[in-house]
């Protein structure tokens, strides 16, 4: 028991990591291919887009806001980049990596101005931009699709590049983004301001936190990540049409929430969000491996989300009553 209690993870991310390892293990038992190098690589490749978006959205959820427009932004960027590359055969991956985030930032700036500037509810604003951006993709694309032959070979090569046999280039970037953002959120004043704003928006105004600037920049960051995720989408699928990544925004929210980013704001990390994305993908992969049909996959995903929220509330309530008990003890 002593040994076990020493093993008990001290952070939320620790427990999530353990759950992830167990899930991967169980999935591996069902389908041994899952534990091979190829299986691991597939897991990372298929998680990269959602994980990157979850990292981008984590600061926003921590601020008690939300960004539903990310999936549409992925679609817009992916189509736009493919279109540009088709028209400029001299483009390499470099242009894609610069232009992608810039397109995303335009959407982010729009969201940021509406949410932070006009103080409109983010759920409604980003639901609006979700439709506007997707509508724009439909109009601009004019039903034109692009395939691998129109895309820069250097970009597709990069999409296939794998380190150490298991780590795709895209997921390496995800880990990099995760670590930088996690560091920023913990060790920079701007990052701490995000937690303060989500914890108590009213008090954030009173202590002089620059609420507009922080909120606005968080949306711009999320937009940039969505733009980059659009490029990742092309690298993975080498094909794009106007419905690319349609309706996936809630999968991103789910990944973040399952990863312990509290929807009520004030707590969570990008590391948790990334683990959350991996966890969802692993379970999906496991279910596919044992031949569960699509309805049940979707239903199990939803179930998982509710379990995550329940666990979150239970933990919060537990720590609240522990803190209360501590206070009663201090008083006695």
């Amino acid at each position, binding site marked *: 028991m002593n040994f076990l209690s020493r093993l008990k993870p001290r952070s939320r991310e620790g427990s999530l990591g353990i759950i992830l390892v167990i899930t991967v293990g169980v999935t591996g038992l069902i389908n041994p291919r899952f534990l091979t190098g190829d299986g691991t690589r597939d897991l990372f490749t298929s998680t990269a887009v959602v994980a990157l978006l979850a990292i981008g959205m984590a600061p926003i959820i921590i601020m008690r806001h939300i960004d539903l427009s990310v999936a549409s932004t992925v679609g817009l960027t992916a189509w736009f980049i493919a279109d540009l590359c088709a028209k400029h055969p001299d483009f390499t991956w470099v242009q894609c990596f610069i232009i992608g985030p810039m397109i995303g930032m335009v959407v982010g700036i729009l969201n940021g101005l509406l949410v932070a500037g006009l103080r409109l509810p983010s759920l409604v604003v980003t639901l609006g931009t979700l439709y506007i951006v997707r509508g724009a993709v439909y109009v601009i694309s004019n039903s034109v699709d692009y395939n691998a032959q129109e895309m820069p070979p250097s970009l597709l090569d990069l999409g296939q590049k794998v380190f150490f046999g298991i780590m795709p280039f895209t997921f390496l970037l995800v880990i990099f983004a995760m670590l930088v953002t996690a*560091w920023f959120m*913990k*060790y*920079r*004043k701007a990052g*701490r*301001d995000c*937690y*303060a704003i*989500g*914890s*108590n928006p*009213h*008090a*954030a*105004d*009173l*202590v*002089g*936190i*620059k609420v507009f600037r922080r909120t606005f920049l968080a949306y711009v960051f999320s937009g940039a990540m969505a733009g980059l995720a659009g490029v990742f989408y092309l690298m993975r699928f080498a094909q794009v049409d106007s419905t690319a990544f349609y309706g996936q925004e809630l999968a991103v929210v789910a990944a973040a929430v399952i990863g312990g980013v509290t929807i009520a*704001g*004030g*707590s969570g990390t990008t590391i948790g969000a990334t683990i959350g994305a991996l966890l969802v993908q692993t379970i999906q992969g496991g279910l596919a491996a044992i031949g569960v049909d699509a309805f049940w996959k979707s239903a199990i995903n939803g179930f998982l989300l509710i379990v995550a929220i329940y666990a979150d509330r239970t933990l919060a309530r537990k*720590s*609240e009553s522990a*803190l*209360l008990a*501590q*206070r009663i003890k201090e*008083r*006695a």
Partner: protein
Amino acid sequence: MAQKGDLLLQMKGVQKRFGGAIALRGTDLSIRAGEIHALLGENGAGKSTMLKILAGVHVNDGGTITLGGNAFTTGSPEAAIAQGIAVIYQEPSLFLDLTLAENVFIGRQPMKGAAIDWNKAQEEAARLFSELGVPLDPKRQARGLSIADQQVVEIAKALSMNANIILMDEPTAALSASEVERLMTVMKSLKAANKAVIFVSHRLDEVFAISDYITVMRDGATVSENSVSATDLQKVIKEMVGRELTELFPKTENKIGEIALEVSDLTNPAFFRNISFTVRRGEIVALAGLVGSGRSEVARAIFGIDKYTTGSVKVNGKVMAMGSPVEAMNQKIALVPEDRRQQGLFMIAGVDRNISMESFDRLKGKLFLNFKKERALTEIWREKLSIKYAAPTNPVESLSGGNQQKTVLAKWLATDPEILIVDEPTRGIDVGTKAEVHKLINAAAGEGKAVLMISSELPEVLGMADRIIVMREGHKVAELSRKEATQEKVIAAATTGSKGA
């Protein structure tokens, strides 16, 4: 560094309008280093507006404010903080998800290179807490902290930003006697460090115990500014209300009748044990004791909000089912809760809807609510309680604290209860309204209602109650009749559990 007695802050003829409403019509205030300055006035006199102008939340429309000889830059909380003004609001504004160290240093975290130096922040916070005599754990989350400890964190924050002027809005409203004492010690040490403390309070005994100067406001203007030795309680009250208050506790002798409420051996191990008492018709029984002694929990258990493990509650001799507020209301019990904003009112709903809320059954036509009857009911209680509002549909959050409290009272009195439980009925409301609320409670008892009153204010307990039950740490430690009760006996019982004194 300011010397003792240096003029730190001067406000002259400061004005503020909100739309058509004038909040301040010309207030003056001078604050010197090393003084504790009390700001008094009835609810709606403009104290909060004044604090908010200094805090940078509002901008004044007229008048001048000078700070250490320079013009004060208004308009943003940041600017106010930069000019050495720290504000501790009535409801502490901490970030509950963050640690105490972080709450102290939010926005001003110590840096090491490009990163926040968390170790240093924690050490500094720990040092500030122990300086204040309250060794809180800086790594602890702010969630679950008592109001008193949250204030300590706010004061540590003010110290850490090296504020010269510390504003406190009703800092003692939610504190128990020992916590008030602790806060006063802290205020004195701030004074000794040549800082200026401005505080708003409705507890006049405290004001006279600790302040050096007293400024009284009425209707948005300064009435007087005196050193504490140059004024007295009667004078201050007169200045605040603009008339003589003949009696703060207009006790009437009521006919005491049958036992209406009988609580026997009520126990909920987490909060209270073996509580027994009775309340008769026409009687006011006070539950006294420190905050946290379990008084409110007993009231909640009687009203069926919480459950209890053993014991019983009898209404008119019949045992009442446990754990059902609906049953309690059927038995004609009413509970006016302690926290009117959170538990007593629907802040964004209209005054009329709030008053009629518990009386819908009587106001209903065949299917729908009869708005005429609702309006009539509101009008009746507006008159009886002299609630002040512009229109009955105005949201209660636009009312002053005193009028909000009257609205909660009206809501429950409108149900025509036989047993009225009131929890801290006059917290945070001014003397004038206080006297009115006391009169209302007396009148309710006079109509033959049994009244159980929880109060942390001793003068209120002694002035109002026919009998006083004192609780300490979940136990009933004394029961005193009106005749035998004295301030000393109640305090002794509440703090040490001893019955004699």
